């Protein structure tokens, strides 16, 4: 599908090949323009029976179930599931904080933490590739102090290359504009879509409530990959440190030994609020430490969705 002349750093063929066997499925019906592997809110002509419905004038007489008429002396129309394609909207947080990536002593370790932006590129790129492979439309929006760049979902391989170009060129800088991007996305994307947000969510959870609610109101399927660098949770500094804000907010001088406990408490409070938000909004939430292989994260994500679809 892609030319070898354009190798992408964030795409690993081995990972792609291993994940290709697991479909990327939406958790709710999609409204697509072509037939695909995703369920549609409309009744169609697939082999998957959906339900009986009373006949109303105007219905195609060929879809009447005569056997049901013979048993009940009433007219019923037999309906089947319609399969359609998926619109995948990737939302990449490109705020300055996404540039953070700790390095561990002995950098030759197997799972050296990546910078969050690189980790996010891999997730977005892989998901985009998988969606393109199964004929879904892929778009992308980069969020950093407003929408930096947006590509609406398209099904063409050429468009997918553009998406990869955007991923490749994305540079973390400035403050985050994730909430604003999500609101704009909810407004501009009329048809149902799978919105995958890859971000460290270093924003006030109260701001996210409105954004997620807006997306849910538009019947979008929302999935969030919440990225954490291991150092951001461990806060394992020893010496007095001057912390420079990657989003340009100035510096803070602190003795990590003194402040670590309170940092942990602040982090726990933030995560607790976020957990409440996830439960209330029903979004697909994945918390990811960047020292975890992204393949593993994506496999968990895809399998979870496939299993949810199977149960339904």
């Amino acid at each position, binding site marked *: 599908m892609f030319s070898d002349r354009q190798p992408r750093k964030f795409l690993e063929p081995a990972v792609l090949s291993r994940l290709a066997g697991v479909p990327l499925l939406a958790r709710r019906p999609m409204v697509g323009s072509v037939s695909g592997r995703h369920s549609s809110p409309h009744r169609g002509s697939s082999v998957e029976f959906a339900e009986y419905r009373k006949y109303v004038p105007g219905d195609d007489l060929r879809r009447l179930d005569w056997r049901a008429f013979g048993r009940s002396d009433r007219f019923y129309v037999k309906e089947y599931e319609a399969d359609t394609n998926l619109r995948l909207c990737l939302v990449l947080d490109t705020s300055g904080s996404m540039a953070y990536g700790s390095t561990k002593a002995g950098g030759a370790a197997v799972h050296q933490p990546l910078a969050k932006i690189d980790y996010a590129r891999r997730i977005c790129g892989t998901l985009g590739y998988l969606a393109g492979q199964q004929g879904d439309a892929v778009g992308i929006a980069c969020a950093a102090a407003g929408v930096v760049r947006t590509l609406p979902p398209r099904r063409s391989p050429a468009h997918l290359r553009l998406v990869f170009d955007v991923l490749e060129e994305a540079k973390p800088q400035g403050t985050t504009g994730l909430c604003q991007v999500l609101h704009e996305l909810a407004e501009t994307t009329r048809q149902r879509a799978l919105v995958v947000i890859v971000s460290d969510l270093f924003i006030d959870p109260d701001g996210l409530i409105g954004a997620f609610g807006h997306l849910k109101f538009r019947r979008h399927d929302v999935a969030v990959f919440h990225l954490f660098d291991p150092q951001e949770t461990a806060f394992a500094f020893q010496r*007095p440190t001057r912390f420079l804000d990657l989003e340009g907010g100035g510096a803070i001088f602190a003795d990590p030994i003194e402040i670590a406990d309170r940092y942990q408490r602040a982090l726990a409070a933030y*995560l607790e609020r976020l957990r409440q938000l996830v439960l209330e909004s029903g979004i697909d939430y994945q*918390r990811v430490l960047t020292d975890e292989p992204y393949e593993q994260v994506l496999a968990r994500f895809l399998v979870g969705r496939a299993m949810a679809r199977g149960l339904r």
Partner: protein
Amino acid sequence: MTFLQPWMLAALPLVGLPLIIHLINQRRYQTVPWGGMMFLRAARALSSGYSRLRHWLIMLLRMLAVAAVILAIGRPLSRGWLALAGGARPDTAVVVLDRSPSMQARAAATPETKLATGCGQLAASLATLAPQRCLLVAADDTLVEIPPATLADAAATAPLAASADIPAMLRAAYDHIREHAAGTAEIWICSDCRSNDWSLEAGGWAGLRDAFAKVPQQVRFQLIAFDEPPAGNLAVRLTATRLETRGDERELLVNIVVTRPEGAGRATVPITFEIGGATTSLDLELAGHETVLANHSLPLGRGAEPRGWGRVSIPADTCQADNEFYFVYGEPPPRVSLVVAEEAATGHVLELAASIPPSKELSARADRPSREGLATAAWDEAAVLAWQGPLPSGRDAELVERFVSRGGQAIFFPPEAADATVFAGLAWGDWTTHPQPVHPEQWRSDEDLLANTLSGGALPVGELEVRRSCRLTGEHVPLAALPDGVPLVARVPDGRGIFFCATLPRPGDSTLASEGIVLYALLQRALERGLEPLAAARQEAAGPTAVALLAPGAGLRWERLVGPPEAVSTVAGLQAGVYAAAGRLVAVNRSAVEDAAGSAPPERIDALFRGLAYMRVEGLAGRGDSLVQEIWRAFLIAMLLALVGEGLLSLPRRRSSSPATVLEAAA
């Protein structure tokens, strides 16, 4: 606070070392680009007051630890309350030790006396303080160097029977400090603050205080006051002895006084008399503060010696020094008087007054040598000289001076005509004739020749009529004065027995003769005083007079016949006991004021040192802890505690939630 190595305190600025290290450490920070600033800001907002307090507590404990090490190396001394006086180790320490009998009192539960306790405390304290020189004010008010460690057992600190003269001892210390001592000096006074030892009313205190205030050296006073009165202490004293002879039988009549604290109930105390190895005792019922046993008869037996000594004692109590009293007895010497008068009538009156003994058992004689025959008069036998006429001069003056110096008493009456001769610093002036007879308005009724009688009655001095009086010039101490302040009876201020009477017993001059009680008492009392040095047996209070009396010289070598075993002083007149030399006996005992005086109020004592560096410590017999102790161990312990506290506060606090727990809890 005092330090044995105060130069170590120069290192005290190192206390700031932890602060400097902290500041340097703060400069050695790392810079890290960071994304999760929202959590850092929230953490800083969560910064509690305790956290800041803990931070400063750690810093404070580190500084305290450094300070404690420095102070411990400086070898700090604990001086209890004395620490407030401050100052470093003194160059000279002068010990003023009250060794009076009252300092031999002890607390009920301990055998150690106040003196022994004080000496022990002084020895321990000064051994710790280690001044360059340690001096003790000896009994003769000289300063002797003494190693501090030997203060507790040196003969120089042994108890005495004499009262202490604290002002004189301080004066001696002052003289030494002014002349010899360089640098700081500390005067350690150990006393039970009895008013008689401190002579609170003496006029010299103000001068002494001013002198110390002006001395260029820094002088500090430390008073160890053992002013707690001994509980239930009894004191026995013999006030009079009289030898009675009936045929060849002799008996001794004694007057005994037993003194005890006010407010005690009735009790009985056994009193033991010891005379010539024979012991008798009686039970005396005590009532009130003072119980007198008068004219108690002690039979001496047939053919007993008319001279001897004895001892009266009571059982041991809280002060051993006043539980026994030595006495001597003997036949009184003949009462010989010399009357020298230029005017015959006056001489006759004086001769009569001097030759009539107060009791018929006594014999008295008054010689009237002429002025030309004075050299051959019975000077060695005479006890009193009554002189009317121009004051003696030349060889006569020498004779009189020698007479007075050996204890004789001289009373001078004015001459008919004015005379410019000066004797003992005094001279007669002009006569004054009073238009109306005048009466003496004031006289010394508490002591000296015109004092009240033993029964307390006053002499009728005020009833005397004086028509003529002779002016007396020179420094004198008036014993009786006329209304215009003219002295009627006066004495020389140096304490010798030289008296002046400013009128004559003639009817035209005064009623001294017609109302002869005053003149008679005057002469007889002077006679009694003059007889004391002549008596074969004599009672004397321990002190300077006894020291002078028993001093080697004049061919006499005094030997102590009996005395308390603990008396080790070589100065005879300061130790109780019986001394004998050339057939004469002298009994030396504590003075009467030792039994009567109480402790002076602390504020009175403190007032004596007003304006000086002075600190008072209450002592307690038997509690001989050193007043000065090295306390570097306490500082090391403080340092350890500070380090332990610092370590505990510096321990990384257990995180309320580990990173994994945080993520799992929020998952």
